[in-house]
């Protein structure tokens, strides 16, 4: 770990060789680090994983469509990142507590967020609608990296409760530059906290390639903090599941924090406001299309005869049902009345806000009913 004066080379970890169990061609391969964590993944399990990913992709497309139609203010597409999101989230126990960024759609789906939860925030009706304690997932974080410290603190709480739950922090490649993410690793290592860091390296932080954030693979960062890490193919749902199972087991059994770098790709724009053609090439996108997480599992399932029209129909039904409820939730959303902007600022009575609320209520009451309707 200590470099000698003559050492000038950078890391030898090859960006293109993360741990993999399913090739882009759909071939099931072996990786001695991961095999035992994927041993029980039979065809049925793989079909479930595929279905989750396919539904996530459909939900994502619906989100984009709703935004285009003016029903949502914004959407952050997750297309291309389904494998890491579904694989890692499916590996978690229901009571593991997950702290995500805005892009972890697949994680929210696994946690059974309601269709409305996925649209009301992006529509601007609420800052968040999920119940974190019911779903065991925190509201998606927008401040880059901030949630990693929350996950570590939660994990410190788990330790104090002598529980075997695990906290999980999801974040992107860009986030690794933030002080908070590095402090999270310091705290996690110092306290041996049961937390798994899942860094989805989708190669871009808006327009900045990952090379602006780091000179070596992101997985190389963690060992420097005393945290074991693994680079995994984040477009390989089998490897993603297996790596996460290893990581969770490590953390759950008292081994302390683990860091996963899931190598993946954001196939769409950063958000619906973004124009990726300004900063990346069509060729790059093509390379990654060939590594599509759904495609490879479809090839595999087809090869083993487990991908048929019935299965496709089943997915269609699930996705169709979910997306139509999503669409309805968006279109039928009722904006809360004006006065409610003043709700929930404090948990206990507060002279300042209570007075402001009363004054605003009486101001609103000053409008004629028909005018008041616009308020």
């Amino acid at each position: 770990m200590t470099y000698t004066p003559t050492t000038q080379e950078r890391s030898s970890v090859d960006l293109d060789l993360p741990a993999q169990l399913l090739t882009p061609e759909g071939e099931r391969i072996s990786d001695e680090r991961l095999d035992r964590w994927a041993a029980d993944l039979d065809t049925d399990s793989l079909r479930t994983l595929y279905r989750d990913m396919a539904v996530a992709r459909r939900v994502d497309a619906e989100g984009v469509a709703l935004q285009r139609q003016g029903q949502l203010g914004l959407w952050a597409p997750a297309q291309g990142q389904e494998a890491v999101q579904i694989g890692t989230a499916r590996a978690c126990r229901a009571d593991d507590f997950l702290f995500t960024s805005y892009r972890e759609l697949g994680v929210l789906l696994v946690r059974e967020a309601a269709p409305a939860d996925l649209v009301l925030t992006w529509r601007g009706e609420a800052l968040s609608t999920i119940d974190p304690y019911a779903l065991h997932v925190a509201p998606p974080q927008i401040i880059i990296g901030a949630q990693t410290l929350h996950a570590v603190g939660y994990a410190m709480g788990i330790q104090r409760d002598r529980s075997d739950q695990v906290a999980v922090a999801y974040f992107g490649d860009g986030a690794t530059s933030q002080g908070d993410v590095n402090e999270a690793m310091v705290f996690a290592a110092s306290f041996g906290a049961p937390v798994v860091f899942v860094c989805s390296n989708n190669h871009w932080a808006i327009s900045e390639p990952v090379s602006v954030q780091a000179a070596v693979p992101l997985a190389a960062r963690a060992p420097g903090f005393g945290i074991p890490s693994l680079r995994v193919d984040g477009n390989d749902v089998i490897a993603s599941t297996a790596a996460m199972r290893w990581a969770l087991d490590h953390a759950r059994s008292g081994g302390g924090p683990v860091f996963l770098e899931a190598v993946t790709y954001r196939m769409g724009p950063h958000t619906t406001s973004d124009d990726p053609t300004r900063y990346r090439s069509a060729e790059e996108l093509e390379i990654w299309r060939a590594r599509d997480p759904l495609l490879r599992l479809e090839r595999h399932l087809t090869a083993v005869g487990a991908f048929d029209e019935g299965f496709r129909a089943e997915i269609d039904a699930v996705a169709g049902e979910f997306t139509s409820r999503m669409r309805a939730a968006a279109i039928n959303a009722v904006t809360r009345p004006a006065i409610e902007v003043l709700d929930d600022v404090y948990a206990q009575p507060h002279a300042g806000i209570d007075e402001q609320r009363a004054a605003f209520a009486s101001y609103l009451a000053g409008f004629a009913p028909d005018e008041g309707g616009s308020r």
Partner: protein
Amino acid sequence: MTESTRASELTMGKALGAGLRRAMRDDERVLVMGEDIGRLGGVFRITDGLLDEFGSDRVVDTPLAESGIVGTAVGLAYRGYRPVVEIQFDGFVYPAFDQIVCQVAKLQYRTQGRVKMPITIRIPWAGGVGAAEHHSESPEAYFVHTAGLRVVAVSHPQDAYTMLRQAIACDDPVVFFEPKRLYHAKGPVDLDGDIADAPPMGVARVVRPGEDVTILTYGAQVTTALDAAIAAEDEGVSLEVIDLRSLSPVDYRTITASVRKTGRVVVTHEAAREGGVGAELIASVTERCFPYLEAAPLRVTGHDIPYPPAKLEKHHLPDLDRLLDAVDRVRDVPRAGAGVVA
């Protein structure tokens, strides 16, 4: 502002870009840095084209870390550079708060003037654009309360162009607020003027003279105030609207002259009321103009709440109706319903 023969019609966004380009041409020690400002030209495209003209030495896409951006700007300033930092959105300035408050603001004082910090921190700012959480913040009061910083806010393209150049030319650090809501608003911009001939950064502007009530405001809220002035005129009430332009220092000469004339003051800003810039303005105006005041100065501001979700922001932002309501109240005109201030 009079339209000169050379003035072009530009959006505020383009005017800011032009100001940056001009400052970079004028002084090779000026460089811009921030997230996505290079190839992408920034999420608001303010820095569009700068990378091609000036290269990556002077147009620096940084890692995603605001403390790092401001902290390295401090080092560059030590070295004699004049960094212009873009904070991508108002709500992302807080990770850099320590570097701004403890370093940028204090280094000149710490070194008894030996080290200057000519850093401009540009912040796309405030709400009204239907954005997600943390994308509509009004953090200006934090910086106004921080000695060692200058704080300005622009409200139209000409000021955007000129004041950005002045901020960059200033040897002190300047926090430069750009109302997102006005990025696409157009106006005439004289691109050739000398910044020394323009009104200094620290001077307020009476954007609409009036007799009855002084409206103090800044940023996009100037537009709301002007709308209110037009509406009030219909009711026979004459509002004098002052665009502060500089929030620290504040040009009390201009303000005092107005208040001594009108005797009535309403301050309006988007930021929360408690401890906001409006508090400082009212306290100072009261100290300076007490004998002239005919009524208590009033504030029309955002509520004391975290910024609400987009669909509700119109109930948070101080709009025309709330401003007119305050104008009535400051004129002691009762109105249906009670006032905002208890």
